[in-house]
């Protein structure tokens, strides 16, 4: 269940900080795929937490 708190923290933290994503559009030097990369990392993190949750529930 502690995993759920991490997820809540991630989602609300992401919600507050997400406007930072917007600045990359068309900026010289900013990689165009950066938001997708961050998003991909977030998905990987969720996948990892999902596995943790399964273990937590099994206990």
């Amino acid at each position: 269940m502690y995993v759920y708190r991490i997820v809540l923290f991630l989602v609300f933290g992401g919600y507050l900080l997400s406007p930072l994503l917007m600045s990359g559009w068309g900026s010289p030097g900013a990689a165009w795929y950066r938001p997708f990369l961050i998003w991909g990392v977030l998905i990987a993190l969720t996948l990892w937490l999902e596995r943790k949750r399964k273990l937590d529930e099994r206990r």
Partner: protein
Amino acid sequence: MSLTGLMVLGIGYMLVLFLCALAVERGWLPSRLTRHPAIYTLALGVYASAWAIHGSLEQAGRSGYGYLAYYLGAAGAFLLAPVLLVPIQRMARTYQLASLADLFAFRFRSRWVGTLITLVSLLAVLPLLALQVQTMGNAIQLLSGGGSQEWLALGFSGLIALFAILFGARHTHLNARHDSLLAAIAFESVVKLGAMLALGAFALYGIFDGPGDLQAWLDGPGHLEQAETHPLAPAQWRTLLMLFFAAAFLMPHMFHITFAEPLNRRTLLRAGWVLPLFLLLMALPVPLILWGAQRLGIDASATGTAYLAFGLSSSWWVGALAFIAGLAAASGTMIIISLALSGMILNHLVLVAHPPIAQPDLYRWLRWLRRGLIAAVIVGGWLFYRTVGVHHDLSTLAMASFVGMAQCLPGMLALLYWPGANRKGMVTGLVVGVSIWLAGLWPPLLGAPSGVVLLPPGLEVLADEPDWYLITLVSLAANVLSFILVSLATRTSAGERAAAEACSVDAVVRPMRLPLVAGNGMEIKQHLARALGEDVAEREVERALAALKMSPLDGRPYALRRLRDRIQANLSGLMGPSVAQDIVDRFLPYRQDGPGATEDIHFVESRLEAYRSRLTGLARELDGLRRYHRRTLTRLPVGLCAFGEDGELLMWNDALAELSGIPGESVIGAHRDTLPPPWNELLGRILAEPHSQLYKQPVALARGQRFLSLHKAALHGDHGDPGGNVILVEDHSEMKWLEDELVHAARLASIGQLAAGVAHEIGNPITGISSLAQNLRYDTDDPALLETADQIQQLTDRVSRIVGSLVGFAHGGRHVTGAAFEAVSMAEVTDEALHLIHLARSGEDIQYVNHCPPAPRVDGDAQRLQQVMINLLGNARDASEPGGRVIVDAEPQGESLLVTVTDEGHGIDERVRDHLFEPFTTTKPAGEGTGLGLPLVYSIIAEHGGQIDIESPPAGRANGTRIKLWLPLNREDAESTDEPDPDR
């Protein structure tokens, strides 16, 4: 592309969709595939509507990465699946709630709340439906350059409606499994994702020379074009994120797929990362297509940014890919929206206005009504597009829709996390929010120059912000504020409080225990038939019984309450929670004449067991403690049961189940009087007793007569709260039997002592009589007197034998050490015993066979063993018929010699067999047996450290008796037996 080619492409795609659904429906595809969790997860891709294909391009052209809000908002909602979606799914599953309106009507205990939510959903969804139709119409117009886009769009809408009717409205229950429909929607998700990825790849490698070239273009010439976009302000971005977050589970089509279709909890949790990944892949090609179009210099003002993908190449397949992607997205969304909305309209508008009481052929009536409503919803969407949508861009339509639907967000969050919220507060907040939304965003939609936006004092600085942003802020703020204030200021009804507890996250329902008027499943059918008709009542009750694995004759109050709940939930899936509750309350009422309602502890426990994995922190620790105490009671090695105040059985532990042979599951929840005999009478007696104990009550159970002691204690709380009684049931049968044995043994011991004394006392006179008889023989030659003297001597011999046996038995209990023992051959002992037996006049025609081998020998006293064999052979002789055989045999068995004496006589009565070694037990006629022979044998064998057993009849024979003696082998003989034979 020609119009005909486009029509062939579009209709061909729809045909493939029909085929896909048909293949699943007919079972042409293995169910392992069609019921795979991936199908459900992909079906959630219905979220990516035509807005994801065309609207996102429009949004990206205006505000750059702002278009990502649509995807990230939904991804956020699914990341929160464990704390947000799973509780909603639990409620929807438990109470068979198929739509947002069902959920709100259930929680706020009002049919009018359901009606209100249905109306809001209908108004909010119309612009979104119009958006789907518009993208189809515009795509056809742009690609073919001819034809009437509106009527062609109507044609495609008709095909979509037909599909929804054929594959979505086949079942009457809204929560039924729609495998074919889900598979088709999953297929559409794959098609639109594949098409978008292909378009993105074409832009990246066909227009640019890969990622490096794209980056170089963005850093160079493309930079100026990107500078023309107007990134969203952080507050606007967050508002947009929140709107799409709400849309991900409030929009009727998303609610339907996520909660009404039977996705299991694990699949929903897995969707927490799979759907965000799907949306990432859907979002990735959007900027690539936009930048590709900008690189090519396509004039967006001619086609509209939303449709730039059609101009990426002159090749027909690029346009075809974009068309198919849009069609797949629009059709999937329209199908599910029409299904979801038709159910809501049916349950919360039509059935509320026209309750289906005693409707003939209810299922058919509901099915056709639903089909008509599906068609009406899609035609409504087309009409809205035709009259309103054509005048607006995609963003205006989408924002009108999403802001409207977000008005249900405060209610939904309160439903999950605020048990104090009440109906008046929710309705007030919703009406205020929806009014602001209608006044602010709908006038421009309907052609007015601008909407009415009333900014609160101090917020005038926001006047220049976009309408959607202002209306969202003001409407949601007013909605939340009025909701909270009215909820706090008004009273919450008891029904609402109970429903709030059922809906709250981490809450466990605490249902009350009341008996039903109906006494079993059959009576429930009869009661329900008055509302639903015979056939429907029969089917609904059978369905609920099958789901609960219950018998229709089960009359346990607990089971009947579960059956009532199940029927209500099933009817809720059929015609909505409001109508279902009305029917169940009216036709399956609770009895009002019983004792006051108390909590249904057993139900609460079963719910706690089911929710165990969701408990955390202190709740989990307490649950651990509860389980420990529960286990202690369940596994207590003494029978235990507990009754509520109303006489309903709440607990029946393992020991009692074993003692009674009645499993707990079959009786828990039953009333005391309906327990199988003798338990109903026995437990009723202890409960009625003023004393709290009943000792050693004789009870006839399946395993024979038992003696049970019962103790009871009242369970009422410290403040006199009713709590029922707990009863301990102890099986004291063994102790009772031991006591009886002890009394019997004491009686025998005194008789034995008396007999020994008598024997001793009469021994001397008998010897005297025998001597006198002997003298008489010498004193006379009279044959008559001689015969008399002879008879006197015989009789005194008999008396002496009896006296000798009595004295022998009286001394039999003494311990004889093995020091005096010697090696004895049982063959010799048996021969000598046979010799003595042959001296007797009776039994001359019995054939005696001695098979005993001379070795090995046993350790023992030859005289006493001979006494044993005389007794056993004498008994065998007496039991045998004339001409019968008595066989004596022996064989070593481990460290003993097994000696058997087998006869072919009438055998021993089963009732006597267990008491044969007790003194004075005999099967012989009175006067012929003393009943001391076998007890003497037993005591001699015990002295020798051996054992004795009786088989009657012997194994494999129809009659006869076999006495088996185990005597310890002589040590020397035993060693020689163990040594291997060198000759072998």
